[in-house]
């Protein structure tokens, strides 16, 4: 059984062409704190006769699937996919952490990894009067909200801000409401390939009914899944930062109110490293009147992962020591930034936690790019109210 699985993994991912140069481990953000050594994992999974020994390696759950290893690999291999492949085997064995089981069960039963009620998915939009995409004419903008922005009170603010921005630009759009289901990005990365397929099929059915001209997502994780992993989806998929960049370029938004603040920008891995969207968010920040921008030392391709991806929202990881999000917040405080701007729900949550755990609430705040933009749309910036 194991042999059957091992061969395809090593062959499927072309692991025999690995030259063991170590660039993957060298760039891995969790290698500093976790026993996970990605170069060794690649080597072992290509030479071992059977992979059952991996089933007890809990450090495989430390990987955030940020994909730095894949970007740095000179042979064009994807070490991160070895981790996902091994997690798939753990899932088939059924021996995984209870918190991971709960997330997968939640996605299966309720269409979101938090296991919140399906009929409460669109509650965040109750007072916003957003059209049901399933009743719109074809060729419109579909806003794919997904789970974090639907259920997490903090992340709902991103969705509300985006709605404000889209309305200011007079862009008609709709949402799937309670018919929307999890994009499956994190589910796939936790190794539940079958459940990912199920969720993909359900969303694809709705996408073809809506037949939109473009799908705009809250999260870079959803954008990545829809754009790169949904088989047969031909519709354009954009993260909101890309879509709003288009709106701003076409001068559809009037950014009036100055936001006098010194900010830096944290690149979400799924937006930057994995999809090359580095410039659009920075360009948008630059358009905001009164803002002062300062760049992290580790930015763009070298950006430090916040540890929120790859299922890490549902499992703490084994590594002792500082969370990388805490490193990030301390760096920003040292730079004299008053706010870290980011563009991903998971980055927002992990960084905001880190502000609290490092006791920096008085010094810095975490603001989503859409919240920042909504502040410059008349009225909001005066109060500085982002809640």
């Amino acid at each position: 059984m194991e042999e059957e699985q091992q061969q395809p993994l090593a062959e499927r991912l072309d692991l025999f062409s690995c030259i063991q140069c170590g660039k993957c481990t060298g760039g891995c953000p969790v290698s500093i704190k976790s026993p996970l050594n990605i170069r060794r994992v690649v080597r072992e999974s290509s030479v071992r006769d059977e992979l059952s020994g991996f089933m007890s390696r809990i450090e495989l759950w430390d990987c955030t699937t940020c994909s730095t290893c894949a970007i740095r690999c000179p042979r064009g291999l994807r070490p991160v996919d070895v981790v996902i492949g091994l997690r798939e085997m753990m899932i088939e064995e059924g021996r995984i952490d209870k918190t991971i089981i709960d997330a997968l069960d939640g996605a299966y039963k309720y269409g979101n990894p938090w296991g919140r009620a399906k009929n409460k998915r669109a509650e965040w939009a109750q007072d916003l009067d957003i059209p049901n995409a399933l009743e719109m004419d074809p060729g419109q903008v579909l806003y794919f909200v997904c789970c974090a922005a639907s259920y997490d009170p903090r992340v709902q603010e991103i969705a509300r801000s985006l709605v404000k921005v889209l309305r200011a630009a007079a862009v008609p759009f709709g949402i799937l409401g309670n018919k929307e289901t999890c994009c499956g990005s994190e589910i796939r990365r936790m190794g539940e390939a079958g459940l990912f397929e199920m969720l993909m099929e359900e969303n694809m059915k709705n996408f073809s009914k809506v037949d939109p001209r473009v799908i705009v997502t809250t999260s870079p994780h959803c954008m990545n899944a829809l754009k790169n992993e949904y088989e047969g989806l031909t519709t354009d998929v954009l993260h909101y930062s890309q879509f709003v960049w288009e709106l701003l370029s076409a001068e559809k938004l009037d950014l009036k109110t100055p936001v006098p603040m010194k900010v830096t920008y944290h690149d979400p891995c799924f937006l930057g490293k994995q999809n090359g969207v580095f410039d659009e968010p920075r360009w948008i920040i630059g358009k905001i009147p009164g803002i002062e921008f300062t760049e992290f030392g580790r930015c763009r391709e070298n950006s430090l992962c916040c540890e929120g991806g790859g299922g890490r929202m549902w499992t703490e990881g084994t590594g002792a020591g500082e969370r990388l999000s805490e490193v990030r917040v301390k760096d920003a405080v040292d730079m004299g930034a008053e706010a870290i701007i980011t563009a991903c729900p998971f980055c927002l949550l992990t960084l905001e936690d880190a502000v609290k755990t490092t006791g920096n609430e008085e010094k810095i705040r975490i603001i989503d790019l859409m919240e920042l933009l909504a502040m410059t749309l008349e009225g909001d910036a005066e109060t500085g109210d982002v809640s």
Partner: protein
Amino acid sequence: MDIIVCIKRVPETAEADIVLDAGKKGIDTDGMVFSINEWDNYAVEAAIQLKEAQGGKITVVSAGPEENNEVLRRALAMGADDAIRLTDPAFEGSDAIAMARILAAAIKDIPHDLILTGVQADDDGFGGTGVALAEMLGLPYAALVTDIQLDGDTLTVHRELEGGLEEVTAVKMPALLTIQTGINEPRYVSIMGIRKVAKKEIAEKSAGDLSLSGDDIGVKGSLSQIEGLFFPPVGEGAEIIEGTMDEKAETLVKILKERGGIA
């Protein structure tokens, strides 16, 4: 070692808004999510762990309509060998006693060393089916089991008692145990795993197949009947704190201090 596990399909109520049905004798399950009864999931896992250690065969049994195949297939994907669904319109309205009669009629002809049920079901919460089934089959039993050790044909089991007490009892097989949650960590059942058993046949048995008469089952065969369901009336003494987050926190701290909750 041949083990039979009785499982039930129940609606998940933790996140749901509960609404009574028109007859006010049940809840409106329209749009609700169903799954295996939590206690039964631990019972299936306990059976699989015994099988992994001892070898043998696991049969899962569930009474109900075709939808119950979901929970049966899930148990097959977890590691059970056979599944039987007991189904008949005449079973409807059965209480724990009538249900035990239905299960007993099906189980008596299947070879077994051990029968496992959950302590209770998430929906009705009777906690009676398992022990009634043991009585009808003339088997020794232990309820609220939190640990199982096997020694020959004797089971040494831990039972959870009131006040944090734990009782250790020896039970000679064949026997029945009702399994408490927390006895183990039920394994995850993947979608691929469920797909692999999608074609596996699930045997069906009706009241006629089990030689059960109308007097033994359904409402007629039940010792108890649900007269009506209602939500507990809203009592007094609850105080909803209004205001902004800061004001609420301040008021709450004040109340806790006043009433001795915090120093």
